[in-house]
């Protein structure tokens, strides 16, 4: 089965690869994994005044997982924290044309976004 053009593009030119310092103010970190395939994804957001000003990722896994997280970081930039929470894995599936066997990669990306947002909120409002 061939990857869609968009997946190949993100795979060859991944956007926003890298990481922020976890302790830095306004940084939220989400690290998630897919037990089915053993892929591990780290996604980070940098928030200023409730807006995501930057996002980075590091994914060790298949092309679809890399493309899903790369796309996710692109979408996250410029969104408010609330808007970011509304990104759904189905949006990623649609944009990247993922086949059914690769849907779990987009789920992983959504989980990573949620985990990063939760980490940011926990740091911003420690109780």
């Amino acid at each position, binding site marked *: 089965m061939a990857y869609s053009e968009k997946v190949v593009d993100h795979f060859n030119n991944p956007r926003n690869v890298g990481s922020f310092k976890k302790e830095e103010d306004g940084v939220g970190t989400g*690290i*998630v*994994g897919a*037990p*089915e*395939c*053993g*892929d*591990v994804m*780290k996604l980070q957001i940098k928030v200023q005044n409730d807006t995501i000003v930057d996002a980075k990722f*590091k994914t*060790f896994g298949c092309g679809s997982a890399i493309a899903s997280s790369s796309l996710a970081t692109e979408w996250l930039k410029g969104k408010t924290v609330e808007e970011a929470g509304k990104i759904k894995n189905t949006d990623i599936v649609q944009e990247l044309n993922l086949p059914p066997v690769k849907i779990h990669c987009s789920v992983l990306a959504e989980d990573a976004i949620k985990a990063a947002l939760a980490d940011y909120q926990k740091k911003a409002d420690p109780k």
Partner: protein
Amino acid sequence: MNGHTHNTDDRRELQMARSMCWHCQSEMAGEYFCDRCVKVQPVSKDLDYFTCFGLPRRLVIDTQVLEAKFYELSRAFHPDFYQNKSDAEQSISLGNSAMLNTAYRTLRDPIQRAEYLLDLEAGAVKDIRTSPPADLFEEILELQETLDEFRESNRASEQASTLRAKLDADRTNLEERQRDMEARLQQLFSRWDTLQDRGEATEQARTERNHILKDMRDILSNRTYVKNIVNDLVATIS
């Protein structure tokens, strides 16, 4: 005997499929062939792989029995023997053979067998959230970064040999943990089987069952993550 539940519709369909011959509509007593018209019957999709081979739903199974039954059924369903039969029988033979091959491949491998059993028992574990192994993820990310550094380093440099020594040590450590996980899985397998053999329906037995299932789920997941990083390690340093 166990907690695997179909919903009522599935069960009715299963009984229908199992109790009436598609060809002569007579009551079926035979397993895969009608006793009256001797026509091959489609293996119901609701039949689990263990039942299909006449095996108990256990994690330690007699692989010789599995193999013998597989050969027996393979012969019975083989498309070559249905070339002169009706289209319906040919398609049943194909479907049954495909299903049989998948079932055999799944049950032959102890890990796939356990994964499959976990899926069957999912009703029981669905409520148990397995927590992602955060420490393991951190460790994997760190290791991947060291691997990247090593890939980009000049192999003749001192930096490369320092990194290499570290990666070698990591590899030994991870491989040891893999063996440890295998051993723990084997223990869980036999605990599960013992519990199933006892067949108690007490609250305590149910709790223990769910514990074992959750532990198996955790180890099987972690095992995949560790396997991946070890593969990357080996591919990079050797």
